[in-house]
């Protein structure tokens, strides 16, 4: 047996053993060591490849093929074994890994809506759907818009219904903080011709000592519809639809006669109590109804004040307190909480994002 033949024999044997070892290997390190030992540069196999050159042509070819086959056989065995071991290790790791998803994660901090903002947007949204536009006016108003054009000339007794803040600006009494959003009615009609269909949301002011149900600063939403033949039925239908949309399908609206200088007939609108659904409870003072807005048909004197002809057009108007209906809707029991700016107040409400 030549030296080469012995070498080849030894390679055959050692790779046979390596295959056996690879099949039994239980760690990646073991596989790595086997690869180093049997396929590395200093391995018998490498030596055998180098010795091929000394073999005669015929034999060299045959031996070369044989060596390659041996090498591939071991390589694929090692590879297969590695994949197997890795998969096993991965499976072990995954079964061990844990995370507590009930802990807070990373999430973009989104601001919390305020009930006034939310209610204003909800009301606006509803009336946009009914074809209303949104009108505005200044919070610092002239007596004309706040009172006189609304059929309350100076010394009109009804002025006492609205306790008013006046500004320290000359002449005294000329400028005031609007006591309601109704002046916007006048501004809208002064600046255009019928048909008019607007709401006017905004901040309003009353000279009221603050308590659980009074705030000197609050918000209202006014509504005004003027056209050729607008009727009390239109007012009722609009308000009833709003009440259902805002307070829920089961909510009912009730219209009572009332008095406002700028509407005739005038109505007070009640909604069936949100807490007891009309049975009578603490929220509604056993009445089963909650007052939510004032409304009525636009008074002819108001039309005259803005140059509309009351024999040609008719209209209705309504006004509601935003805080009041927010309090009813969300069960807030103290109006002052709206104006403290306490983030914890918002946290307790958790209103849905707009």
């Amino acid at each position, binding site marked *: 047996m030549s030296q080469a033949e012995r070498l080849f024999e030894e390679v055959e044997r050692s790779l046979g053993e390596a295959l056996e070892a690879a099949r039994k290997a239980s760690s990646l390190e073991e596989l790595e060591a086997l690869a180093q030992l049997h396929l590395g540069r200093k391995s018998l196999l490498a030596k055998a490849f180098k010795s091929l050159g000394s073999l005669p042509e015929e034999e060299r070819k045959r031996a070369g093929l044989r060596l390659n086959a041996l090498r591939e056989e071991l390589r694929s065995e090692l590879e297969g074994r590695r994949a197997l071991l890795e998969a096993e290790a991965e499976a072990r790791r995954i079964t061990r890994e844990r995370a507590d998803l009930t802990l807070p994660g990373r999430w973009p901090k989104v601001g919390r809506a305020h009930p006034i903002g939310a209610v204003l947007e909800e009301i606006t949204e509803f009336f946009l759907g009914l074809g209303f536009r949104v009108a505005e006016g200044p919070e610092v108003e002239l007596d004309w818009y706040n009172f006189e054009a609304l059929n309350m000339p100076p010394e009109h007794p009804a002025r006492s219904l609205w306790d008013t803040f006046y*500004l320290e600006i000359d002449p005294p009494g000329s400028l005031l903080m609007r006591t309601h959003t109704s002046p916007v009615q006048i501004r809208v009609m002064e600046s255009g011709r019928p*048909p008019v269909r607007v709401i006017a949301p905004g901040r309003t002011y009353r000279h009221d000592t603050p308590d659980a149900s009074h705030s000197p600063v609050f918000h209202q939403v006014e509504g005004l519809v003027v056209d050729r033949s607008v009727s009390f039925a239109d007012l009722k239908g609009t308000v009833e639809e709003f009440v259902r949309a805002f307070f829920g399908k089961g909510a009912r609206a009730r219209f009572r006669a009332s008095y406002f200088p700028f509407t005739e007939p005038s109505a007070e609108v009640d909604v069936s109590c949100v807490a007891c659904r009309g049975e009578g409870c603490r929220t509604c003072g056993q009445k089963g109804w909650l007052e939510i807005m004032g409304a009525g048909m636009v*008074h002819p004197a108001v039309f005259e004040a803005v140059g509309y002809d009351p024999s040609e057009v008719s209209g209705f108007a309504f006004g509601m307190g935003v805080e009041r209906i927010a309090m009813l809707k969300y069960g807030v029991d103290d109006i002052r909480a709206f104006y403290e700016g306490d983030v914890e107040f918002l946290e307790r409400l958790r209103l849905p994002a707009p």
Partner: protein
Amino acid sequence: MRIPWDWLVEHVRVSAPLARVAEALTSAGLEVERVEYPGSSLSRVVVARVAEVERHPRAENLFVCRVDWGEGEGKVVVGAPVRPGQLSALALPGGATALGPVEAKEVRGVLSQGMLLAPDELGIGDDHSYIPELPGDLPLGADVREVAGVGVPVLEVDVTPNRPDCLSIRGVAREVAVLLDGELLPLSLEVPEGEAEAEKAAALEVLDSEGCPQYVARVVEGVGVGQAPWHTARRLYLVGMRPVNNVVDATNYVLAELGHPLHPFDLDRVAGRRVIVRRARAGETLLCLDGVERRLHPDDLVIADEERPIALAGVMGGEETGVGVWTRRVLLESAWFDPRTIGRTARRHSLRTEASLRFERGADPEVLEAAAARASSFILAWAGGKVARGLLRAGQPPARRRVQVDLGRISRLLGEEVDPDWAAGRLGKLGFGVQRRDSGLDVEVPPYRPDVSLEADIVEEIARVVGYDRLPSRIPPACQAGALDERGLLRRRLRRAALASGLDETFTSSFTSAVWLEQLGLEASSAVRLANPLSEEESVLRPSVLVTLLLAASRNMERRRERVALFELGRAFRRADGGVQEEEELAAVFSGGEEELHWDPGREEWHLSSRPLDLYDAAGAFRTLMAGLGVEFRWAGPAGGVFHPGRARAVVVAGEEAGQVGELHPRLVKQLGLSPGASALRLRLDPLLKAATQVQYTPAPRFPPVRFDLSFLLPEAVEWDQLSRELAGAVQGYEVRLHAWDLYRGPPVPEGEKSITLTVEAWSRERTLTSEEEASIRSTMIEAAARLGGRLRA
């Protein structure tokens, strides 16, 4: 107006129960706010006779009475004088008064076997001064609630200012009659007259017929002033008044019943027995019945005698001519005063009385004689005497108003056909005189309805009695599309962007104080003051929303809230050209800490830590807002005002300063208790509205960008905004985007310089950039930085 049920049903025959009456009134505009049952908490309170009265042996002001209640007798101690023989309400031990339970107990050594009750203990009024005498014919031992009218329910009706007629039992009774098909019962107006003639007993002179268009007076002679009978006192208590004496009570009784204010003068104290109606003269004063001496204004209408004013017309009588036990002759005034005059006087003297309220809202000009007659007959009945024949009168009632009503228009306004006969019938019952005309009604308005002068008023009357709830309803047909205008859209976008950027929505008062503005270092002189603030703290209109928002932030910190990131959209006010300029703003404040999560998946470690909110939160939120609006802005100089001089900047939109962003002034931060580095932003809406927000698409590049980093050493003064503009502007033919990601000062960076590191992204639209192109962009940028005094950091 408080309406005792027994009094009401004396005026109207109605079969409906009280609850139904209350409901009908509420629906028709006379809201019954509640129904009270004054005597409901009484128990074991019976009619008793005071048999004997003697002084308490050991107490000066107490009396010991032997009382007899039919079924038994006992001794009670009482603190007010009582008359032997009088009947009174006795609460027996084990029972209860309106103020609490009653037990037999020893009072200064004498066992009191019960209590004689004062009005407050009976639950009818807040008077504790005496023990009322019950009518002599009541059965002893009977429950006072049943026999003495103490248990009568009282309707509390909220009367709107347009309905002065319903500030009376009679007015409400009339409504009940119409609404519930009842019958208004006739009123007895008979007065037995004596021999003496009123015209001889007194004289009347009205000098101001504008202030007093009508004045009627009656004279009653030989009265004996004393206590009014029990049922009079009881009813006065129940409507919220206090009995005074039988003469004054007669006028108050008529006031409650008919709604017409009357005033009795002690005629013998009226100088010259002449009553003169005129305006007050400069310097005149009047001691009023409430004991207050008032300096009169020349606009005040007064009743005077030959020497001095003796009453503030329609508001309050004078002390010196008031009726008391000494009075023998009474002049009874029944007048009609100008509502505005009375309103002004009541406001001027801050003196609102039952009388001024009714005159100011408009009393019935035709009821004067009836009211005087009724009161005279009550005086006769309760105080005796004789009514002088005839009356003194000046002026006549005005003609009644007439209103023409077009039935077609009524139907159009109500949305439903109205049956003219039915309507005429109802109006008739309300006191309107109605005549049918071909297409409408000719309506005469009754004198007690000053609120009715137009067709619309008649429409309301009809709608009221139909019942609003029975009228039809429909949704008005469309006439236009509903849409927000530019400002509405802007406001909505801002609100949503602010919420999305993590800011909590806030609403704060529009009022603040001058002191607070000064503390903030803001000029208080341009702020607008209220003429009649509720308090000094809320006496000035906020010149910026930030002013009141900062206070809210401070309050949150006081309450140890963790993360205080607030915004408010609202209006700010400033003095301008003699008026007030109002402007909409968005303000935001950042204080406290923001929680950040660190999660190491390898070690399965989870850790939350808090970092302070700071100016980069403000800057970031600002960018989110502007991005949300699609508005271009430019940084400008220092912000000033409440901001840190070096760490806050003004921003410019559409060529105009649109707001400020940055850290708050450290002095302020400390003063407000905000967290160090607390920051804020303020944004005016007007410039944002002017800014064009056109959306213009440029196609997204299809080729990947090259990315490389540059690190520059720059003079301290060069800011990122300037650097990035310079670098981006220098590159031609490629699109570039720059991200700063590191700012560093300190060794080895020389003093007065800083290092900024950024990543450059560059694209071409045609191809992937070659390394030569990348190198060229790079060197262009290095040259650009050099123009700002920068150099590449080694």
